[in-house]
């Protein structure tokens, strides 16, 4: 029942009272004319939401912040018209559209433009079909199952030049002095076939020459690897925009793609279910999907996650830590962590996503600006480079040029 029903019923009661007081019969007629639609209006909308078939046309993938076109194909398979239909669809973004009239057997396409505000795999099922025709006093709703899936990747910013990769102070520390077996692109030699070897690595000329199956051996890839650690311990709802974790993912995706473009290996690490979880050498789509599906509540604080990095740091020339300024990220503790990481990786860069700059809904425990400054000081003191990012910061600008003190 909508507010209009109350207004009509209230008007009817008022007219009835006045009509009775002054014994004016027409006022009772008017009272009935206001109350009648309230009674009829409760029953009539039921038919309007029956016999409707829906199909959703939504893109399979999108980037966070993109405006995408989502269409709803509405078909009336009943013999009567369907009037004043409202379609409420929450796929990607809550959207409400109104179809004034749909004739019997008629099909229309309702095209909407929605912004993919939320990162992740959006699997939406229902569209709510509602009508309060003809009087708008009561609404009848029906849920229609219309399954659709769209993966919203983190916002990707083109970063042409990554100063913290180019200016690694001791690149030789990133490369082992003796070659090791591995799956890198560099050829190391040939040997006899062993069970489990890929047939793609069979070296046919040697096999023909020696009469036994020979395979190629490769040097372990020892490129200057970038390790990106994303702090997924928490997140906070933000009114109409990316959350701090979204910004971390966006940083991770943008930097990873730039590093890939420069021929560098990239490993992404985060916490999931209280354990470190990582992805390396994946296709770009896999990287994006991994970041799209990264959820808060990983169960490990940055300090705890850093302790578990272990082999993830092998061969790493640069470590990028993308972390929001949650209160759990204590400046002193992180200073020690950064100090430790700097012992293991030539360059440590920290992208500090300042939570206090976001319009977060509700109270979330985050560092106030003074403590963020303290955190930056601690990190810098440990030799880390710090990039501060607020809500709406331009990533290209933030990562496009080096801070003066670290410029090569």
């Amino acid at each position: 029942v909508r507010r209009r029903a109350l207004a009509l019923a209230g008007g009817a009661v008022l007219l009835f009272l006045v009509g009775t007081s002054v014994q004016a019969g027409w006022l009772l007629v008017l009272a009935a004319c206001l109350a009648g639609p309230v009674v009829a209006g409760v029953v009539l909308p039921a038919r309007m939401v029956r016999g409707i078939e829906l199909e959703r046309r939504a893109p399979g993938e999108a980037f966070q912040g993109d405006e995408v076109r989502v269409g709803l194909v509405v078909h009336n398979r009943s013999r009567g018209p369907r009037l004043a239909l409202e379609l409420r669809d929450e796929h990607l973004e809550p959207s409400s559209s109104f179809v004034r009239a749909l004739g019997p057997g008629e099909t229309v396409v309702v095209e909407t433009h929605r912004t993919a505000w939320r990162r992740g795999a959006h699997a939406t099922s229902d569209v709510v079909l509602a009508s309060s025709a003809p009087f708008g006093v009561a609404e009848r709703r029906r849920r229609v199952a219309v399954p659709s899936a769209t993966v919203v990747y983190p916002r990707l910013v083109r970063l042409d030049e990554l100063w913290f990769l180019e200016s690694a102070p001791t690149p030789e520390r990133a490369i082992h002095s003796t070659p090791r077996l591995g799956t890198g692109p560099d050829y190391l030699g040939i040997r006899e076939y062993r069970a489990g070897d890929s047939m793609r690595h069979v070296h046919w000329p040697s096999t023909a020459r020696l009469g036994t199956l020979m395979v190629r051996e490769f040097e372990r890839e020892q490129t200057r690897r970038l390790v990106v650690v994303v702090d997924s311990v928490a997140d906070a709802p933000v009114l109409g925009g990316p959350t701090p974790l979204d910004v971390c993912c966006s940083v991770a995706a943008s930097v990873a793609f730039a590093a890939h473009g420069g021929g560098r290996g990239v490993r992404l690490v985060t916490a999931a279910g209280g354990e470190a979880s990582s992805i390396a050498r994946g296709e770009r789509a896999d990287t994006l999907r991994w970041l799209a599906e990264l959820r808060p509540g990983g169960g490990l604080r940055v300090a705890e996650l850093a302790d578990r990095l272990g082999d993830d740091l092998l061969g790493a020339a640069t470590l990028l830590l993308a972390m929001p300024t949650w209160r759990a990220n204590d400046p002193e503790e992180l200073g020690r962590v950064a100090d430790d990481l700097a012992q293991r990786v030539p360059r440590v860069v920290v992208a500090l996503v300042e939570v206090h700059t976001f319009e977060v809904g509700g109270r979330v425990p985050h560092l106030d600006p003074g403590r963020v400054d303290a955190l930056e000081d601690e990190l810098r003191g440990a030799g880390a480079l710090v990039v501060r990012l607020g809500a709406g910061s331009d990533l290209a600008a933030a990562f496009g040029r080096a801070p003066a003190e670290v410029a090569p």
Partner: protein
Amino acid sequence: VSALAERIRGAQGVPEDSRPIRTVVALMVEVAILAVVAQGAVDGATAAGALVLTPVGYAFSYARRRRPSVATKLALVVGLLAVLGAFLRAVEGARSFDEAREPLAALFLWVQVLHSFDVPRRRDLGFSVASSVILMAEAGALSFGTGFLVFLLPWLAVAGAYLFLTLEPPAAPGRARIVRPAGEARRRRAVATARTVGAWVAVAGIAVSAVFLALPRLPGLNLALPPFRADHATALPSFRGEVVNPGLTVDADGVPEFSDLAYPGFSASVDLRARGLLSDEVVLRVRAPQPALWRGLAYDTYDGTTWTVSDERVLSIPRTHDSFDLASESPTLLPTRSVLATFYVQAEMPNVVFGAYRAEEVYFPASTLTLDREGSLRAPILLEEGVVYSVISEIPVATPELLRGAASVPFATGDASIARYLRLPAELPERVVRLAERITAGSTTQADAVAAVEDWLRRNTEYNLEISADPPGVDAVDHFLFERREGFCEHIASAMAVLLRAVGVPTRLVTGFGPGGRNPFTGYFDVRASDAHAWVEVLYPGAGWIAYDPTFGVPPADPGTAGRFIAPEVLAAIGRFFSAAVPEPLRAAARAVGRAIAAATGAWPVALAGVAAAAVLVAGLRRRRARRSAGPRPEGAALAFAELERAMAARGHPRAAHRTAHEFVHDVRPHLGPAEREDVELVVRLFELDRFSGERLEDDDVVLALAAADRLAASARGSP
């Protein structure tokens, strides 16, 4: 000022761009203004100004909906203050709401006119709609007749359109775009929509009627100052309390005659030899919470043909403040019910002040009234169209038990004031007295005797307006009782009065109007000239005069719960209409069916079986309708395709109605194994060939298609 201007600008909100919505709102207001103007509630200048300026205001408001309206608002405030000042000046000295109705109507109209110049948002248009409801209510409250329907019906139509159009949210940037395929759908949609709107109107009409019939008619407030006024008052020259009935004529023998509006009973005497018919013209409209007999004059002396008043002295009653206080007239020991009735005179009438018995307080537009000894009121002016007066009455609630108790108190012996109500003509035939004694032989109380006489008259006499004249020299009552047994209210009431006097019960003859028919819409009792009536008052010691109407009965003083609803009256009227329209054999058949249903519902197994049979019948009809609407049963390749659809639906892949067979294959392919895919493609290919190639399929092909469909159906069932 700048802060205020900023605030006003901020409150502008999203302007309403919909022309249809603005048009229906303007129409609603315009119709409501017309309705008020039609009731004559405002002067010509106000009417013309409101009717012309309101549409101009809406057009102006639409044109400026996106512009700042600070200047407009300031101008409107000035205008509002001006009309308020005019209103206050007009009502200065008004003593009642009734006297303020015209200035109030003008105020409403001018406020509406001013408001129409500043309605940028939908919300403002909503205020206009509320305002039009108020104007319609005002017009309805002032309306006397069903002519108000001329305005109400179009207003309801545009109000319905407003309710529907405003279901669509206001235009907003980034709204969805509706893409419709071109084709004939538009015409089909329009036809189907018209049908649906018709059904909505019917359902809403039924709902409105049901609510209207269910609304109780409760007593109104007794206003501090009930309406009374006279637009034109014709003063009676040298008025001394006599009854003046200007339309009354007499025939050559000096016997009064009925004419269209002049009832001979509203004069100094009631001559039972008078004959004729009155018109059905409405002479009075009475606003009252319940029906009552509107009493005019009473007569105590019967001479064999004529009733007169023996004592013609009258008492002049001065007005105290606004009303005439009659409460000092002989009190009654019975409980009473206070009823306020306001009389709106519609045609020229005698100078008799009608009202429910017993009038306690009268609001009448004259400086004095006269009261005769029978409690009849006469005015020094004629009752002409435009005269309005109100009477507050205390109607005795007389139950038979109370009256039996009242009658046990004896009259004072030799009371001269009682004797005149027992007097009979010396020439009254003895058989009248004997008849009275015979009728009341078994009665132990006065109330029983009265009831016995009333009952006898109802059973043994007929109401007939077209009777012949009495032979000369006969007693009118004797002739009515023993010769003709037919007559109209004067004869029947006179007979009752005389019979009761014959057994010692004091009575008098009363003339006035019957309650009239209550107009279900206006709520007024429409009293017609032909409702002029005569009845009897019986004097009970201690209780006073109690009305009896042996012709039609007296409306109950306490209508009770059932009497508070109009539905029985309306349903009875509808029943009478249909009963008059339906031929007797059909009515008899309907009665027989009704009796059979009543008898059947007495035996519950029969009723249950009846309901079950009806349910089976309805289900059968629905199935038949569904089969017909589904078209002919498929055959050949079409049958195979139908099987395929069923099989796929069973597997959770129903074909949407708008998907072609080819698209359907595309939809289901990913869910099928290789063999099933081949079967599906075979069925669809043959179905399309059959449907679109224009050639008949070979029987072998049909067998192939059916076999493939069977395999798919078996697969869907999970069997090989």
